[in-house]
């Protein structure tokens, strides 16, 4: 879908907008263009779903990952490494 009359955007642009809206708010017109594109383009719709899934996978990682605690085994190793150096 080539950008001919302003309302149509390319698939590449659609994927950019899908990510951009996670960082920043996108303008009204951009939202309409994206929505319109996704209504007609099943491939980009697939991309959108998978992109959201990847974001969710990150969130899951952040809940389970070592933000508030270290893996006990790694902590033990690191302590041993430090102690061996003095």
């Amino acid at each position, binding site marked *: 879908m080539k950008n001919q009359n302003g309302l149509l955007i390319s698939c590449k642009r659609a994927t950019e907008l899908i990510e951009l809206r996670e960082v920043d708010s996108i303008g009204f017109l951009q939202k309409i263009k994206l929505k319109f594109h996704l209504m007609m383009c099943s491939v980009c719709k*697939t991309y959108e779903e998978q992109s959201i*899934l990847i974001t969710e996978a990150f969130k*899951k990682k952040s809940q389970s990952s070592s*933000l508030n605690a270290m893996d006990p085994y790694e902590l033990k190793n690191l302590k041993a490494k430090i102690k061996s150096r003095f």
Partner: protein
Amino acid sequence: MEENIFENWVNEYTETLYLWAFYKTSHKEVAEDLVQETFLNAFEGIGKFSGKSSPKTWLFSILSNKINDFYRKTSSKVFPISKDFSEQEATEVTESFFDANGNWSSAPKMIFSKEEANLLDDPKFLEIFDFCLEDLPENWKHAVRGKYIFEKKSSEICHDLNINATNYWQILHRAKLFLRKCIENNWV
């Protein structure tokens, strides 16, 4: 005597120091190195420790300097050279997903989707996800981890990586394209 005190400090503060360093650098190996260097410096400079502040405060001030040095020293090339894709190579890969008109030349296949309710609990999926994440160029990794895992502000990530807001979301876009394709390739 001193060694005993030190051992106590290592036992008590390693984890907190590491978690802070990891938060600031989003990089496991770098964080571990910085914590090791912090203790080493502290050990060598124990004479400078006056006891006016707590050992924790003192250690944190050493670590903060180390983190600042790390970013200053390497502002153009923030991370150690890795065997992963360079940023340029990875960008070429993601550019190849589209033709000159911006149409897909390598269209996403619906082989994994959020309709599969338990995908995020599937160890195999998470393993592939981790594998693909590791494959990203270091500064892309830093950007996506910073945003999605540490929930850092965009401005903080831009500052860490010495990039502007446009570079930042372009990186996020390319990183997503790259990750998605990698998962697709590995998800059988």
